[in-house]
Every structure is written in structure tokens, then in C-alpha cells.
């Protein structure tokens, strides 16, 4: 990995974002609305379940942003004609995308905090973390795992022309199977394995164990869930690397990146 390239890509993404920050709204609107609705439906329930919803809302916020901004990362270059100069440079595309994803992840975190603060103000759940440091650590790892999914997506979306369609198709399924708003156990049997291969599901689980008294979790406990998430994240990064190599090969062999 080339730190300078990654940092330059990070700054580039930041500048892009700061010149037109209102474009965060489309990636934030669904998680925001979904969280409000959930909290409304939980009206007469109180205690830890509501806290779960607030935490879950934050995760949805991070997910929406990861999906849209990372998904567009390289597609934007293709659309913009900057993919050529990127390809001709001696840089690895993945370093560029990594830098951008790190920025996107930070925005995802601010999304989460926004949803969180909003929900707190509106519904006054009174969050008390039993171990804030541990919670924060899990949150950071969860963000990293989301960013690694973002890497896979940005590569995958370049290979398929219909990326915008895929992107909007993927937003809600993850809301459902990540268990952000309700325990995975109430999902139908076939959906549970899908939850298990998604790193954020384990992150959500670990966060809930850390934040909510009396929450039992999926099973492996806080360290177990954390470990599984880290393992999956590493796997995602390897997959992303493979995808990027495939892209480079495709481009150089066929002249176009992806046809559908």
C-alpha cells in the first residue's frame, strides 16, 4: 500500500465532499426515516430495546453512506473520464479507493452520530454506556469492516454498468439482515446465514453487548463477535484486491471496463 497515494485520495475525496456537502442527504435520508419510524413503533416499549434502535439507526446511517459513496468511487472516474489518467499512472487503483473510503467512513461515522443525537433528542432514551472505551473500539472496527465492504462494492460496481441499480437494491436487504434494529433470531431461517457472512452483523452484536445491559447476543460473546468481524473484514479486503486485479486485467484486455 502506498500511503502517499492513499492520503492524496483521502484529501481529494474530502475536497469533493466539502464543495457540495448537501449530497450527503440522499445517503442519509433512508436511515434517518427508518430510524424515526422504528422509534415510533417502539413508542410504548422502553429501556434497552429503544437503545438498540438508536444504535441500529447509527449503523444504518453508516451503511447508507458506505454503499453510496464507495459504490460511486471508481464509477465516478469512469463517468468523469479520469479513469484513463488514473490507469496510466503507476498507482494501484485500490490505494486510491482506500483513501477515498477512509474519508467516506469518517462521514459515515458522523452520519451515525447525527442519527444518534437526533434520536436522543427526540426520544430521550438516556444512553448509558457500561464501557465507553470498549464500545468506541468496536465502533471503529465496525466502520473499518463497512469500509472494506465499500472497497468490494466500488470494484464490483465498476465491472457492472448497472451499478446504480445494484446500489439501490442493496440498501434495504442489509438493513434487514444486519440485525441493526431487531435481533437476527426473528429472521426466517434462510436469511440467518446471510447475516452471518456480513461483518457488520457481528459488529452490531458486539456493540449491543457492550452498550446494553442484559443483551445476550448471537452467541460467541463480545470478543468472539469482534474476532469474527475482524476475520471477515480481512477476507473482504482480500476479495477486494482480487476484484481490482480483475478490473485492471479487463480494462487492459478489452478496452472497456465492464459491460453488463
Amino acid at each position, binding site marked *: 500500500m502506498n500511503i502517499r497515494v492513499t492520503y492524496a485520495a483521502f484529501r481529494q475525496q474530502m475536497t469533493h465532499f466539502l464543495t457540495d456537502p448537501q449530497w450527503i442527504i440522499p445517503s442519509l435520508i433512508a436511515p434517518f426515516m427508518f430510524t424515526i419510524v422504528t422509534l415510533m413503533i417502539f413508542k410504548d416499549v422502553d429501556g434497552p430495546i429503544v437503545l438498540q434502535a438508536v444504535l441500529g439507526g447509527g449503523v444504518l446511517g453508516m451503511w447508507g453512506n458506505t454503499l453510496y459513496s464507495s459504490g460511486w468511487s471508481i464509477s465516478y472516474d469512469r463517468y468523469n473520464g479520469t479513469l484513463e*489518467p488514473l490507469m*496510466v499512472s503507476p498507482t494501484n487503483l485500490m490505494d486510491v479507493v482506500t483513501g477515498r473510503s477512509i474519508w467516506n467512513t469518517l462521514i459515515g461515522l458522523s452520519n451515525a452520530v447525527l442519527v444518534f443525537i437526533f434520536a436522543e433528542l427526540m426520544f430521550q432514551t438516556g444512553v448509558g454506556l457500561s464501557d465507553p472505551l470498549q464500545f468506541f473500539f468496536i465502533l471503529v472496527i465496525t466502520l473499518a469492516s463497512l469500509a472494506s465492504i465499500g472497497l468490494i462494492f466500488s470494484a464490483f460496481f465498476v465491472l457492472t454498468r448497472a451499478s446504480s441499480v445494484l446500489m439501490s437494491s442493496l440498501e434495504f436487504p442489509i438493513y434487514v439482515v444486519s440485525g441493526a434494529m431487531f435481533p437476527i433470531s426473528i429472521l426466517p431461517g434462510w436469511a440467518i446465514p446471510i447475516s452471518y457472512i456480513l461483518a457488520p452483523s457481528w459488529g452490531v452484536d458486539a456493540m449491543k453487548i457492550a452498550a446494553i445491559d442484559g443483551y445476550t447476543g448471537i452467541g460467541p460473546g463480545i470478543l468472539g463477535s469482534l474476532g469474527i468481524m475482524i476475520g471477515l473484514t480481512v477476507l473482504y479486503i482480500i476479495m477486494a484486491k482480487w476484484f481490482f486485479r480483475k478490473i485492471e486485467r479487463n480494462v487492459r*484486455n478489452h478496452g472497456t471496463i465492464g459491460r453488463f
Partner: protein
Amino acid sequence: MVEELTKVFPGKRKRPDKRAVDGISFHVKRGEIFGLLGPNGAGKTTTIRMLSTMLIPTSGSAMVLGQDVTKDEVRIRRRINLVSGGERGLYYRLTGRQNLRFFSELYGIDPHIRDERIDRLLELVDLKESADLRVEDYSRGMKQRIHIARALVNDPEVLFLDEPTLGLDPEIARDIRALIRRMADQGTTILLTTHYMFEAEELCDRIAIISNGKLVAQGNALELKDSVNNATVIHVETRDDPFEAVDVLEDTEGVIHVNYDRVPGRFITRIQVEQSSDLLGDVNEVMRGLRVLRIGYDEPTLEDTYITLVSANEH
């Protein structure tokens, strides 16, 4: 150095394979401006993309700066750069300077050298004042110039220019050509594609003409003209539209190609004929009834040569 370079794009959905570049060979010397000339779809862009490591050749080989484009792409990429015509290819929400800085980072340029070089490049392309404006606010000519500056951030030894003046108004195109000249004078090897004849004639030390993926001729402008010395041109200027005469001439034995153009006040018809044939009389005959301003033999221009070569290849 290019040997038997071929690129075949596999056909999509039962369409036949497309042989975009079909076994071309040429050699570019250090420090020269080499032009690839040819009609649209002749394979110019595909060639330049293979040489700039963006495409892997199907067969044949190409060496850039002594390195193989298929295997040593990363080493080549550090020492080359590419400009494609048109406005795309910049980050519009960034300023000109930010674009240059970003691309410099991709080449790992030392920060000290980088900032100094960016200032120098901005001066070179005359964008010093607008360096901190966003590219989306640039005019077309400014975008094209910042493109060239972008391609120079790594101080490339070889620069590929794909239709660098495409769609620019004449004045801006002239500026760009002057810029290309200046870069060559500083020792950069330049390989450019164009389908503007005068551009090739004005800029290029040597020219290769490509048609249907095949290289049909190469050399400097004079050599190219000489290479088709079996052809000569009859130049006719008329007040009236000679379209009927042109139809007749095209079917006349000994005529290679007829090209006619309207310019203010008259029509210019250039008839390329085989040198051995004496067709002046026949042309006179066919043009009878039209108000002829001038008629006579003429030296073939590069454009005539080009038309002869390309139309011979197409038939």
C-alpha cells in the same frame, strides 16, 4: 519500437471479432514528434492505448523506453503520460492546482519538486491566474491546457497525445500546437494521433498513416508525398458546381480519387490521376460548359497523398 502489433477485440454477442490494429510496426526515435494519421476508427487510439499500457496487445510486441508494454507496465507508467482530446478527464470540483497536486501524488513526486513543478507547469500552459479556480468554471481551452499540464506532472520522457486539438477553435488549437512544439524542443518524445493533415505536417518529424488497422505508409511529409509518386494531381477551380463532372470523372480510367470542396466564390476539384495517364484533355472535356477559373497540374499535398493511400487501402 513497435513490432507486428495487433489488437483484436472479441465480438460481443455473435458479432464478429474486430481487428482494431492489424500487425503494425514502426520505430520512434527519442526526442521526435511522431504522428499517427488516419481516418476515424483506423486504430490510432487503440495503438496509443497499447503503447501507453492501457491495453494489452493480442499479439506482436511493443517496447517503450526499452520496456515491454505487456509485462513492465508499472515501470513504463512512471516515465510516460497520456492526454486524450476532449474536456473529460479532470476532477471538476477540484481547482486546477488541486488536480495537478493529486496526479503528482499518484506518481509519488517529491513534495518539494512537486510544488515547484506545478508552478512551472501552470506558467507553461498560461493558467497561473486561474490555478485556484475550480475546473468546472474553466473554458474549453483552459481545460485542454490543464490537461496537458496534468500529463506533465511526472516530467514524462514519452508523451502520448490522442487527438489533442479535437473540437477546439483554431486559435486555441494553435496555442496547443505551439505548446507541443515547445515540449518537443525540451527533449520529450511525443507520439500524437490526429486526423488534421496540416497539424501532422506542421508538427510531426515523421508520420505513419494508418487505415483499417494497417500501417500504409510512414516517413516524413516529403517522403510520404514521394511514396505515391505514381500519382499526380489535376487542380480545377470553377465558378459553377461541378458535381456532374465529378461523377463522370470518378468512373474515368486512370483516375484514383476525386475530391471537391466549396470555398467562398468557387469550387475546387482535385483529381488524382495515375502519372502515366494524360488526362488533362479529358478533364477539360468533362468540365466544358462550366465557368472554369483555373485548370492545371499540381504537386500533390500531404492531404492528396493521404487520400490516395487511405482510399487504396480501403478498396
